[in-house]
Every structure is written in structure tokens, then in C-alpha cells.
């Protein structure tokens, strides 16, 4: 069908065949790579979990439940049945009153209480204070509110059901909420540090490569010198100068990672600036700035994109390493590296604290690496 139309209409035959750009080609190749697509899906899910997840978890990431320190991961609701009575009794004992037999039914717990003096209605606070119970009240035998001045009655409290699907940490905070926040922080630092490395590295490398000559020499020697400084040294200096905070960490990582980027972009630029289309642009009177931004930089993007996807896991790892050494983000905020470090401190008594964050981080790193490999194959077919 298509042939007949082109034969009839000469105008259509003259129209240029819709070319496939480098990016369309790359996209087609990438789509065929199942590992890369699966990784991209995993990453999107992780990113979504990190961004939106913390709003949907039943517990805020920094809420401490003193009664549930290192509660094991479980799909059932806490408190477990056999802990309700001891906890209720220990809460009531602080009120220094006589306690009778404690009864538990599905959602409430009740115990007859009495004292030589009239019962003070304020003693319900001893019960409410516990994470296990809420809405504590004093009733008489018929279930009505206790009359003032009575010396005996029934203490009734609702059992508060909470769920910790991933357990709680050594301070009694919900691990699921903390992992979600950790994903958010780790991914954010990975992406922001890479963007920073991208911007600085591309600008620096393209200028050095395009201008060339003595400036290029000086700029690349500077890179060499920075390269030889140990990364940890640099970060420790930054951290002690400016204190520990989120912004500083990704700046520090970005500052150390742009060097490779600058080298790659410079190399690309050196070969691009001798090509015909750049000379054509020069002949047409395009300024240096225009040539750089319109012709050189867009053409360096292939290798740069590949490098960035491999930079993100590297930045996440560096951040995790810093957190592990105690130089990363500060409590109560957390990152996956910090969670793993806390988990390894508690692994004897609470192995889930190590396993869940470790699995999460590994999944992210794997996905990023596979995606990076897939992109390299897609954008750089000759490199296969």
C-alpha cells in the first residue's frame, strides 16, 4: 500500500525518509534488553516507595515506641497476647493500688482495682502512657463511669493494635518507615550528587577540551592533583568545617566524582571540535558559547548518560560508606547505609535490622548497574 501511494504522489517520494535519531535507536535497543527494563521498573517502584511511601506508613519514621524495642518483623498485630497482661499490671502497679484478676477480650483489657482511699481518676494516665493501651477509664461493675469518691471499680483500657511488618529498631522505631525514608535519602543523594558531577564535569571538560592549549593543560593538571587527594580526607575536612548535613554530603560526593566526568567530556570534545559540523558552525559565525551548547555538549551526551547511570550507584555507595563511618546524615533522619550500620551493631539480637536494609540496598544497586549496562549497550553499540 505504501508503495502505491509514493508512486502516485511524487511529493511524498521526495519527502525525506523519517530518519531514526541516535536516541530512537538507543531506545529500541534498550527496550529489547529485558534485564535493563526490569531494572528500570524496579527503580521506578523504589523511587515511588521512597517519595510517597513515608506518607502511607502507619508510623512516622522518627516515632519511638519504648514498649516495642527490637520487636521482630511480623505480619500479625502487636501487642502479642501474652504480653498484654504483664504490661497492664506493670502500668497499674505504678498507681500503687490493689489489682484484681486481669481479663483480656478481643480489644479491651479490664481489671478490678481498689484502694483504701477514694480512687483518683488521674491514675488512668499510668495506663494511657503505655504504647499498648489507650482510652483507659475507670468504670463501676455495670460499665458506667465510676462515681467520684468510690474506693473500688474496674480499670478498662482499649488495646492499641499496631503492626510492624519489618519489626522495630533498637530505639523502638518502625523499620519499614525508616527503610522508606532511607530509600528516599539514598536515592536523593545519589541523583543529586550525580547531577552535580554532571553539571560541573560537563562544563569543565567541554571548556578545557574546546579552548585547548595552555588553558586545557592547566585545567587538566588541576584535575590530576585533585584526583590524587584521598576522598575520605576531603569529606572529613568538609564535614568538620561545615557540620554534618544532607546538602553537604551530596556536594562532597559530587565534588569528588566530577573529575572522571570532566576527563570523559574533554576527550569527546577534543575529537568533536575538529569535525565538519563544528567547522561549519564556525564558518556561519556562531559564537563559541553557541557552538559549545548547541553542537559540542549535545554530542557528548551518549557516553555521559552511561557514565551518570553508573555514577548514581557509586554515589549511593559513597554515602552509605560515609554513614557507616558516622559521617553521613544525622539521626533521626536515616539512609540505607546508616540502617545497615545500625543493623550490623544489633545483628545478634535483631537480625532483621540488618537483613531488610541490606536487601533493599542490594536491589537498588543491582537495578542501577543493570540499567547502566543496558544503556551502555544501547547507546554505544560498537562497544559490545
Amino acid at each position, binding site marked *: 500500500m505504501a508503495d502505491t501511494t509514493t508512486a502516485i504522489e511524487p511529493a511524498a517520494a521526495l519527502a525525506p525518509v523519517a530518519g531514526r535519531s541516535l536516541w530512537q535507536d538507543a531506545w529500541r535497543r534498550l527496550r529489547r534488553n529485558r534485564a535493563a527494563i526490569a531494572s528500570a521498573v524496579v527503580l521506578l517502584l523504589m523511587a515511588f516507595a521512597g517519595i510517597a511511601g513515608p506518607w502511607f506508613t502507619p508510623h512516622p519514621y522518627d516515632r519511638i515506641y519504648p514498649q516495642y524495642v527490637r520487636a521482630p518483623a511480623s505480619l500479625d498485630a502487636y501487642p502479642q497476647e501474652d504480653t498484654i497482661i504483664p504490661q497492664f499490671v506493670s502500668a497499674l502497679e505504678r498507681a500503687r493500688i490493689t489489682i484484681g484478676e486481669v481479663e483480656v477480650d478481643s480489644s479491651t483489657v479490664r481489671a478490678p482495682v481498689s484502694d483504701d482511699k477514694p480512687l483518683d481518676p488521674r491514675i488512668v494516665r499510668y495506663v494511657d502512657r503505655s504504647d499498648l493501651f489507650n482510652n483507659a477509664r475507670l468504670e463501676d461493675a455495670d460499665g458506667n463511669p465510676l462515681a467520684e469518691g468510690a474506693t473500688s471499680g474496674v480499670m478498662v483500657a482499649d488495646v492499641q493494635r499496631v503492626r510492624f511488618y519489618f519489626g522495630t529498631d533498637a530505639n523502638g522505631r518502625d523499620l519499614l518507615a525508616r527503610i522508606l525514608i532511607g530509600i528516599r535519602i539514598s536515592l536523593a543523594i545519589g541523583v543529586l550528587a550525580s547531577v552535580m558531577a554532571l553539571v560541573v564535569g560537563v562544563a569543565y571538560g567541554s571548556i578545557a577540551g574546546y579552548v585547548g592549549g595552555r588553558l586545557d593543560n592547566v585545567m587538566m593538571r588541576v584535575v590530576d592533583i585533585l584526583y590524587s587527594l584521598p576522598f575520605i580526607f576531603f569529606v*572529613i575536612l568538609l564535614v*568538620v568545617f561545615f557540620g554534618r548535613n544532607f546538602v553537604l554530603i551530596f556536594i562532597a560526593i559530587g565534588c569528588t566524582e566530577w573529575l572522571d566526568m570532566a576527563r570523559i567530556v574533554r576527550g569527546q570534545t577534543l575529537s568533536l571540535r575538529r569535525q565538519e559540523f563544528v567547522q561549519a558552525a564556525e564558518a556561519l559565525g556562531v559564537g563559541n558559547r553557541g557552538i559549545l551548547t548547541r553542537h559540542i555538549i549535545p554530542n557528548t551526551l551518549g557516553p555521559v548518560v552511561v557514565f551518570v547511570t553508573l555514577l548514581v550507584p557509586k554515589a549511593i555507595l559513597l554515602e552509605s560508606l560515609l554513614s*557507616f563511618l558516622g559521617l553521613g546524615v544525622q539521626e533521626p533522619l536515616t539512609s540505607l547505609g546508616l540502617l*545497615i550500620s545500625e543493623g550490623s551493631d544489633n545483628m545478634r539480637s535483631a537480625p532483621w535490622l540488618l*537483613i531488610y536494609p541490606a536487601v533493599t540496598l*542490594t536491589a537498588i*544497586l543491582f537495578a542501577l548497574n543493570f540499567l547502566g549496562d543496558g544503556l551502555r549497550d544501547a547507546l554505544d553499540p560498537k562497544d559490545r
Partner: protein
Amino acid sequence: MILYVLRRLASAVPTLFLIVTISFFMIRLAPGGPFDLERPLDPVIMQNLQRAFGLDLPLWQQYLLYLGNLLQGDLGPSFTRRDFTVVDLFRYGLPVSIVIGGLALSIALVVGLVLGALAALRQNSWIDYAVVGTATFGITIPTFVIAPLLSLFFGVMMGWLPAGGWGTWKHAVLPITTLALPQIAIVARLTRGATIEALRSNHVRTARAYGLPAYVVVGAHALRGAVLPVVSYLGPTAAALLTGSVVVETIFGIPGIGRYFVQGALGRDYTLVMGTVVVIACFVIVFNLIVDILYAWLDPRVRYD
């Protein structure tokens, strides 16, 4: 050749000098000092402490003093571990780190080379896929994830090996494994790539055409070229492994020197930081030299005259 080695060693002196100078002034740039506590010390005590350690002198005098001591092999007293000199600390810690790092390095080299060569010889077979898949695992999972997981599984759950500490050979198994795993993965990948390339090269084809037995073709001709990238990778890596790993030493509680740098920098233990920098720099310089010599020996095209 001897002349070349001597020339290289001589050129290491200015490099070392630059490294010492830069790090000396960099660590002094950091605010705070080694004797800062939560509760400030009595000013008189502080003055005495600073005088005792020579911190009251002008910075350039301290620098010259340090250089002078360094030339005599004296790295000074540790500021935070008051009973030790820095040289003492290294005398106790360095052998531990070298044993662990050296064993990890040897294992990584042997296992990685064998696996990589096997994968290359049987390209696209199940061995190849298994090696490449495992290598991806080993490269992706960071040490600070592997180390606690190994310790948890073999130490706490199974109870086969101690989960941490230092003393018998059993204590060394898990740290060495942790250090070796990622290196095995990288060495295997490098070897595989280089061997595949070498097997297609002219000199290997010639060796085959002469009718040499397969093990001679692979062992003496293909692998000889294929280990070149591995050798150049292993230079800096060997230096890093032998000078200890912060993560592994922290998790397994090993008294090596890997922790000195970070602890020293955080505690402003100036002499300890400087000592660590000097020791690491020496290792890097020596191993780079070894790599270059090995290169000349492995690849006859490389000449240093």
C-alpha cells in the same frame, strides 16, 4: 633495569615530600584540636599538653620538626592513644592488616585468574554465564553489606566461625573472605575479557599453528598477555588491601591499621593521620613500581632504558 628501579625510587622522594606537606597543612586546616573535649580543659593543663607535644610552636617550626623526625623514621607520639608512639601502633597493627590483606589478595588472584580464564576458554557456556553472573554479584554488593551478612550467617546463626575478634586462624576466615570476594569478581572479569581478546590475537594463532599443546598455548602465550590488565589493576588494589580496610576491621573487630586514618582524622590525632598517609603512600609507590617491573617482564614490548 637496576638503574631504572633506582631512578624510580629516587623520584618517589619528592612525591612523598609533596604528599606529606599537603596532608600536614590540610589536617591542620581542620578546626579543633586533639585535646578538645566535651568539657573544655583547664587552660593551664591545655597549655602544658600543647607544650609537651610541641603544638605551641609556630606551624612552620612544627612542620620542619616533623620532617626532621620523619627522616629519622620517627613518626612522633600518638595524640589520642597517649601510651603509644605512632611507630608502635603500626608495629602492632600493620602485620595484622598485611596478613589479612595479603591472603585475600593471593586468593583473589588465584581464584579470579582461574575462573576468568575458564570463562574465556568456554565462552558462552554455562561456566561462562556462572562466572559472569557471580562476578556481577561480587562487584555490586558492597563490603559493608557482605561483611555483616557473613558474620551473621556463619558466626551467629550457624556458629561455625567466630563472628568477630582476632586470635586464631578461624577469626581470619570471614574477613579474608569479605575482602577477597569483590576482588575475585573484578579479577575474573578482567581476565575473561583480556583472555578472549588474547585468544584471537596473532601470536596465539601462530602458537596454535605450530601445533603446541593447548596448555602451552593458553598458559604460556594467551594468559601471559591477558594478565596485563589484571596486573595494572592489582597495583593500587594491593596497596589498599595490605593497608587494611576500615569497614572490615570495624565489623569484625580486627586490630589492624585500617581504622587509623578515619579515627585519627576525627580525633585530630595529627601524627597518627600523617603516619597513616606516609605508610599508605609508601605502599602505593612500591606497588606501582612492582607493577611497572612486572609489566616489562610480562610484555617484552615494554622497555625502560
